[in-house]
C-alpha cells in the first residue's frame, strides 16, 4: 500500500504539472525536497544525540526502569506480547509523554529508540510485530495537551485567545486515540483466534 501511494503521488504530480504546462517545476520540487530531506535528517541528528545521551544517563541511573514500573501496568496491557521487563516500555512511555506535552522534537528520538527495542523482541525482522503497530497507532493518535507549535502560530497572527483551541484539540485527539486503541485491540484478538 505504501509503494502504491508513493508512486501515485509522484506520477499524478508529474502528470498534473505536464498538463498545467509547468513541467520544469517537477525538477525544482524534486531537487528541493531531496535537499530538505538532508536538512531535516541533520537537524534530527543533533536533537537525537542530545536525547539519546540523556536517555542513556536515565537508563544507567535506573530512572527508565523506575518510570516503567510506575506506568508499566497500564501500558503493559496494551502490549501483551512484550516481556514484562522489556526495555521498550521505558522508551514507549517517554515517547508518549513527550507527545502529550507537545514536545515533538523530543518525541522522535524516544520513538525511534522504542522501535529499536521492539525490533529486538520481534521474531520476524522484516514484518511489523503487533506491538510495533500498537505503538505506532498510539504514537500517531496520541492525545495532545499542549499543541505548542500551533499556539505559537496563532500568537504571531494576533489571536485574541491563542490557547482557546486546547480544549477542542484534547477532545479530538482523545477520541482518535480511544478509537485507535479499541480497533487495534479487536484486530489483535481476531488475528489470534
Amino acid at each position: 500500500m505504501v509503494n502504491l501511494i508513493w508512486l501515485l503521488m509522484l506520477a499524478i504530480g508529474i502528470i498534473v504539472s505536464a498538463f498545467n504546462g509547468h513541467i520544469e517545476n517537477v525538477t525544482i520540487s524534486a531537487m528541493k525536497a531531496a535537499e530538505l530531506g538532508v536538512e531535516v535528517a541533520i537537524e534530527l541528528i543533533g536533537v537525537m544525540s542530545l536525547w539519546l545521551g540523556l536517555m542513556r544517563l536515565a537508563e544507567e541511573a535506573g530512572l527508565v526502569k523506575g518510570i516503567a514500573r510506575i506506568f508499566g501496568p497500564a501500558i503493559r496491557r496494551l502490549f501483551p506480547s512484550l516481556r514484562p521487563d522489556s526495555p521498550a516500555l521505558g522508551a514507549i512511555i517517554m515517547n508518549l509523554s513527550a507527545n502529550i506535552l507537545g514536545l515533538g522534537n523530543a518525541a522522535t528520538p524516544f520513538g525511534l529508540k522504542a522501535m529499536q527495542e521492539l525490533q529486538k523482541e520481534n521474531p520476524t525482522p522484516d514484518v511489523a510485530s503487533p506491538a510495533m503497530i500498537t505503538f505506532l497507532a498510539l504514537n500517531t493518535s496520541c492525545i495532545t495537551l499542549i499543541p505548542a507549535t500551533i499556539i505559537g502560530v496563532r500568537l504571531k497572527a494576533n489571536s485574541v485567545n491563542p490557547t482557546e483551541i486546547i480544549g477542542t484539540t484534547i477532545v479530538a485527539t482523545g477520541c482518535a486515540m480511544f478509537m485507535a486503541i479499541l480497533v487495534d485491540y479487536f484486530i489483535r484478538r481476531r488475528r489470534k483466534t
Partner: protein
Amino acid sequence: MNVIAEISRWAIPLLLLLIPVIAYLRKVPVYESFVEGAEEGFKTGVRILPFLIGMLVSIRVFVDSGALNILSHWLQPLFALIGLEADFAAIIPLAIMRPLSGSGALGVATQLINEYGPDSFIGRLASTLQGSTDTTFFVLTVYFGSVGIKKYRYALKLGLLADIIGLIVSVWIVTKVFY
C-alpha cells in the same frame, strides 16, 4: 489551561537538570555515558535519511504540481458528509496534507490562519486539526524504515483510521464550540 502550558515550558529544562544530577548521585560517569548514548543519534539519523528523502520528494512533487487542490475539489462531497459546510472548503487541503507531511501541513495551516484570521472558524478548525492528528504516513515510513521493517501489515490502515476519526471529531467539536 495555564498550568498545563507552564508544565510544557518547564519540562525540558527540568529533565536536563534532574536526569544528570540523579545519575551523578548514583555514581554514573555522567559525561562519558552521555557521549556514549549520543553516538547512537548519528547512526539513527543516517539510517532514516533515505526514507526522509524518498517521502519528501514524492509529497513535494504532488503538492507543488497543484494536484492537492484538484484532489481537494473532488473530495468536497465526502467532507460535506462529515458536516463540513461548503463555505469552509478551504480547510480540505490541510486535512489531506496532515497525515502526509508535518512541515507541509504546518505551512498550509499557517497560511490559512493568516489569511482567514486565527479567530475565524477556519482559523480555529485549522488550529485544532494541526494540533490533533499526526503525520501518520511519515512516522510509519521513517520509524519502520529505521529498523528495517518492510511489511507494515495493518499499521497504515489503523493510523489513517485514527486520523479520519480525529478529522471528523475536529470538525464536529469546533462547529459545536465556536460556530
